[in-house]
């Protein structure tokens, strides 16, 4: 072995392992979704007080839920597949968490600016969603929408066929109105009632 080999090797190893550990949150995640999951669990993010409008045309904001846990998903009403799964899941979860469990609420937020109150109503009827236990809502304006998408970390990209690609992740908002948990991709809540 030559002079300087061991220190150089050590340096490369430390920097390399350090960089990979940083990028994978300590070798736990490889995707940006995973990274967000870990960071949110550690530091819940307060949600800005965005005004939304629900299927009945009532306006509300996250502040109104104070003291309750909310499960949130992001949908668009023309969505052919994934949102159907999400809707079924919320309906099942709702039927299991009975009246006693009134401190849990559900919220489906549309990110499609083409949706209107009527579309929301149709979507809500499809899954028997009744406000205020389960609101199907959309932000009042585009600014509110982008603030929400940013806070929750939702990426929506056009699918090239007039619809959208989104990941159908479910979020849990805690009693003090912070995004506290991101469920695993594809995980559903009906199996595990809160």
């Amino acid at each position: 072995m030559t002079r300087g080999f061991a220190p150089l090797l050590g340096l490369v190893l430390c920097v390399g392992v350090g960089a990979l550990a940083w990028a994978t949150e300590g070798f736990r995640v490889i995707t940006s979704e995973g990274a967000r999951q870990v960071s949110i669990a550690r530091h819940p993010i307060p949600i800005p007080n965005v005004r939304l409008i629900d299927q009945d045309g009532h306006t509300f904001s996250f502040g109104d839920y104070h003291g309750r846990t909310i499960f949130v998903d992001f949908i668009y009403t023309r969505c052919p597949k994934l949102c159907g799964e999400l809707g079924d899941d919320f309906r099942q979860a709702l039927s299991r968490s009975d009246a006693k469990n009134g401190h849990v609420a559900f919220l489906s937020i549309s990110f499609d600016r083409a949706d209107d109150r009527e579309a929301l109503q149709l979507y809500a009827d499809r899954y028997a969603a009744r406000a205020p236990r389960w609101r199907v809502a959309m932000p009042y304006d585009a600014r509110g929408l982008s603030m929400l998408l940013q806070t929750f970390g939702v990426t929506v990209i056009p699918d090239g066929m007039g619809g959208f690609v989104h990941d159908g992740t479910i979020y849990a908002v805690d009693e003090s109105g912070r995004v506290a948990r991101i469920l695993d991709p594809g995980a559903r809540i009906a199996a595990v009632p809160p």
Partner: protein
Amino acid sequence: MTSIEAIGSRSRISATAAVRAYLVVCGIVLLLMMLLGLTMRLAQAQWIDVEPNLFYVIMTMHGAGMVGIAGLGGAAVMWHFVRRYIPVSTGIFIANLVFFLIGAVLILGAGFIGGFAGAWTFLYPLPDHSGGLWSANGAAAYMAGLLVIGVGFLLLHLDIARGIISVYGGLGSGLGVKQAFGFAPEKDGPPPAVAASTMAAISNIIGIVVGAVVLVLSLVNLYVPSFTFNTLVAKNLIYYFGHTFINVTIYMAVIAVYEILPVYTHRAWKTNRAFYLAWVLSTLMVLTVYPHHLLMDFAMPTWILVAGQIISWLSGLPVLLVTAFGTLTNVYRSGLKWDAAAGLVFIGVAGWAIGVIPAIADGTIPVNSVMHNTQWVPGHFHTYLLLGMMAMMLGFMTYLAGPKSPSRLAPLGVWLYLIGGTIFVLAFLAAGSASVPRRYAVHLPAWLPYDRAGSIGASLVVAGALILIVRFLVSLRSPIDATP
């Protein structure tokens, strides 16, 4: 002695010492693993009591350990002889042994401390679904052990491939492709040891890197369970690796036949066009044979199954045929004086030939769906591994020990090994055709006769192997002969 000769004899001494080191490890591990095998057989025969959980640990260790030393022993045979024809690195050869020992420690720790019992094939995602029997660290240590062993073998085969290329120009010429297709005269072809080593290098390099991929993916899955991958693909890759690796052990060990028998018969091994053609064909087929493991997987496309069936009938056959035929012509009327080494090598060819017959039966789809998970399968592979591959390796050991060492007991060792081995594998095959399932710790009363016959045979095998191995160890006292 000129200085060049002095260097030559010194490197011969260190090379022989390295081969001896390999065989010491093989001999001791083989005995230990045989005792584990005997323990399983006795437990199935209900002559001793073994907790089922422990049975599966033992089964995993026996499988992994045996496959590992089959590889190691084959490598020792191959390297010892191929070194006569191509330049190879003794350092790399020793490095492989070191990697092997590190891997073996990890694997033994995984089994006997970590409780890992997911069978040597570590079928994904089983390692991560232990039902609480073993920890993630146990499974990880097992797979890391395999990975370390794989690194050593990969380096060894690459080094041999490099040596072949440096002398023959390319792996194709090393395999004798030109001779096989009549583009070059037969007499210019590579010696059998080189052709066999070329095939071993090609198959194992590809097999090992494929195995490394599944191992790495499974390891990631252990620690990041949300990271999953397609189980059918994983199964394909694992069997591709496992099947290739175990197949190649016999193609390495068979070099002992090509090199040792001629010493006894004073006739060179005949390499003709058919011989080269056989090696070329078998190389191609070993690379494609694995789908027959998946005959039960209806999820596989039909054409793969059909191709797999045809190829699995034929895969080892070409090499087996030219070897068996070559052995007979080499021995016939040669006036050879049989001794333990020649006998073992000869038994090896016979065991290999006979062991392939049940394999061919098993490769047929209708038989396979009935038999594949019965003891027919251990019956088949114990025949060609215990009576074929390991017999060749023990023959090599006995040959190295030389005629000088006490040899009165050696013939007894060979007879015990042969008779015990035959009873042992027949018991498996008979049980298999009576539909006794493989990999069962606890057997029904109706199956006990098979298990008991098997246990008796196994005890004889262990006794025979003990004699041969102890004889080899004793022979190590004499210094290495430096003359070529």
